[in-house]
Each structure stands twice: as structure tokens, then as C-alpha cells.
């Protein structure tokens, strides 16, 4: 254990994802020894992001305004929604340039052991977006792993009753991985060859 402020920093860093106690300690001492100006920039970046960046009130993607740039863009196809788990998946799909519709960010996948059921995700918000009848196709682009597939199964069953076309990215995506690691070509191809769920 270190004295007050240093230990506090180690504890805070250790709460970040993927950072164990050893890494937290290493980062804390890096910060301690680093140039004060550089560290001020880091603090400002964190403060700004927390103050300015929110989540789009329509799709849940990160945004600096009430709604994100994709939801505001009139050139995007208003009849298609691509459902993803996280904001970083929006970036992955955007890179492929295969999709011109809009997005819906769920905020994760259904994972009962982790205490995440359908109610913990932005599924009700998705249903609300369907109420005006403008949406014709929903593309489910959750991760090609078990939780992602289970979430797709749940959504397909729910959306079946609404009468909208539901598709899932082609199974050409290797199973077990995260969407964000799929290369652009593979992901683009998965979009082209999406299959109907209902």
C-alpha cells in the first residue's frame, strides 16, 4: 500500500477494464513521473468527454449533440436499421461502407449470468423507433459469438410479430469473435449476404 493520493490513483486505474493491479501501479507511477503539461492534457480530455459527449437520444450511439451525426444525416436510408451491441461496432460497420441506413446501439448483449436481460438493453427504444411504420428492414449485427447469437434470436422472435423484415449478418463471419475485429472486407461481405430470420 502506498500513501493516500498515489494509492487512490492506483485504485481508480485498477477499476478500468483490462487493468490488473500490476498495470494500475505501473500506470500510476508513469503519471507520477510524467510531464505535468502532458498529464493536464489527459485530465482535460477526460473532463471534456464526460461533459460534452452523451448518447444519441434516438440510436444510443456516442454523440456530442442530442442526436448523433448519422441520425441527423438526411442522406441516410430511413427504412433500414442496423442493430449493434456497442458504439465501437458502429465504427466497424461504417468502415465497410456497405451500409447506408441508420443504427441502433443496444448497449451490450443478453447475458443472464452477468445479470443482463432484455430489460437492461435498449430494446424498448428499438421498438419505439418502429412505431411510425417507416422501417422496413432490421439488420442484426450483434457479435458473432454465443451471447450475440442469443440476442439475435431474442430480437428476431420479438420483431416477427411486428411484420418488419429481420436479417442477420451472413454466417461467413468466424464464430467466437468480436465484431470489431472482423476485417472490412469480411464484414462488408457479411452485409451483402445477410440472411432472413423472419
Amino acid at each position, binding site marked *: 500500500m502506498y500513501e493516500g493520493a498515489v494509492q487512490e490513483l492506483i485504485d481508480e486505474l485498477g477499476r478500468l477494464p*483490462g487493468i490488473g493491479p500490476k498495470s494500475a501501479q505501473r500506470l500510476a507511477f508513469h503519471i507520477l513521473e510524467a510531464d505535468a503539461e502532458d498529464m493536464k492534457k489527459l485530465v482535460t480530455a477526460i473532463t471534456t468527454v464526460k461533459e460534452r459527449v452523451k448518447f444519441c437520444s434516438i440510436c444510443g450511439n456516442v454523440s456530442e449533440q442530442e442526436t448523433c451525426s448519422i441520425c441527423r444525416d438526411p442522406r441516410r436510408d430511413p427504412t433500414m436499421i442496423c442493430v449493434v451491441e456497442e458504439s465501437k461496432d458502429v465504427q466497424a460497420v461504417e468502415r465497410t461502407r456497405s451500409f447506408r441506413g441508420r443504427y441502433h446501439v443496444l448497449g451490450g448483449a*443478453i447475458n443472464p*449470468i452477468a445479470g443482463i*436481460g432484455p430489460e437492461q438493453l435498449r430494446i424498448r427504444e428499438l421498438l419505439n423507433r418502429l412505431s411510425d411504420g417507416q422501417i422496413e428492414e432490421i439488420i442484426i449485427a450483434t457479435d458473432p459469438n*454465443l451471447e450475440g447469437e442469443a440476442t439475435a434470436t*431474442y430480437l428476431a422472435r420479438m420483431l416477427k410479430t411486428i411484420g418488419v423484415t429481420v436479417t442477420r449478418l451472413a454466417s461467413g463471419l*468466424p464464430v467466437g*469473435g*468480436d465484431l470489431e*475485429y472482423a476485417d472490412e472486407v469480411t464484414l462488408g461481405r457479411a452485409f451483402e449476404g445477410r440472411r432472413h430470420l423472419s
Partner: protein
Amino acid sequence: MSKSSFASRTYRDDAVVLRTHKLGEADRIITLLTRRHGQVRAVAKGVRRTSSKFGARLEPFMVADLQLVSGRTLDIVTQAVSIGSYGEGIVADYTRYTVAAAMTETAERLTDVDGESATAQFLLLVGALASLSRGDHAPELILDSYLLRALATGGWAPSFTDCARCGAPGPHGAFSAPLGGAVCHDCRPPGSPAPARETMLLLAALLSGNWQVADSSDPQHRKESAGLVASYLQWHLERAVRSLKHVERV
């Protein structure tokens, strides 16, 4: 590290994946129930990359023949050969998925300290996941049968016929989770639930694996027995099995 010390820390075992956690950039921590080494937590490196050699073999509900290297806090998975890929049949149906989650969470809780019954728990879980994946029976019946048998294997065998406290021959009309199941008129604590006779028969069938009786049971008795199984599980595990409240019951 010398080659011989690496070799001496390498071991091989069959395992079922109970759950996974993301670790760092592209790794996962895999919680396993093994056939011979009890519960094991191991790192699968690079498994989240779509180019991973592990593919779907280390996803929850999968059974694989693994090669591992033991480490100080976490072991490392170096090879995985699939033995049973039940995940696909399970995620194709949302109810099955919620049931499988409740079963693996229970298995994790029952084997985190008790290494003795681990082999029996491994076999029981693999059998239940296979049955669930094939759709042999209603998912909620497979779940309740699994829960009762897993608890029995863990040393908390309930009785649904003779009185769990005094042994008086049954059938009896009351149920007490703290006392271990069916209780006679003299032993029943005040306020004990009084389930239907058919519910007690269903519970006994689920515990013994009498599927003929279980499959032909009525929805109302399934519902009642599910509540009693949940209360029995809760009583013995202290902390709630959180997946249980997400289980869809038809």
C-alpha cells in the same frame, strides 16, 4: 523458463465452458468445469479476434478436450478440440439459452469450493446441455431436473416422498426447503407450502429422471414445482442464482 518446466505444468482434460469474461484487448478468461481437475479458470489468448484458432470452441456451453498450462493465478488454454458443440442448438431458442445460463451458473456455484463431486457435476451438466440442445424435453423440465440432481450430487439430496425430517413413509402434503423436501404432518413447520400431490410426483420424477411422468405433467404443476425447486436451490446456495430470474417459463 526451461522447456521441461513448461512440459511439467501442461495438463489435458475434458471441460465444459461455464462462462467467459473479456480480458484486455482480445483475450478472455474462461471459467471451466473439468472432468478431473474441478473448476478451472484459464486465459484464452486472442480468442476474440476473428482469426483465432480457437473459433467457437471456448464459447459458453461448449465441451472440449483441452490442453492447459497451469499458472500461478490463471491457467492458459493452449489447445482445444471440440467434443460437444451444444451452443448452436441452445442459442437457436431463447428459452433454452436462459435455461443453459441458469444451469452453468449453478454448476459454477456448486463446484467453486467442492472439488470432490466435480466429476459427477461435470457429467451431469454435459448431459443436461446435450439434452437441452437436442430439445429432448421442455427446457424448464430439463432445468428443474438438473437443479435437483446437481444439488443431490452436491450433498443436498431432497426427498419428495418420505418425510425429509423423520423418515415417515410418504406421500406427504407439505414441503419445507430448510428441512429437505416433503415433510409429514407432525414435522411440517408452520407456514410450509402445501403443493398439489401431482407436483410432488413431478418433483420426484425430475429428481429420479423419470421422463415419462415429467413429460406428461400439466403446466400448473410444472409451475408449482419450479417455484419449489427455486426455493430449495436458494436455501442451499445462500446467494441467489441471478440467471434464474431471466429464465423464460412457458
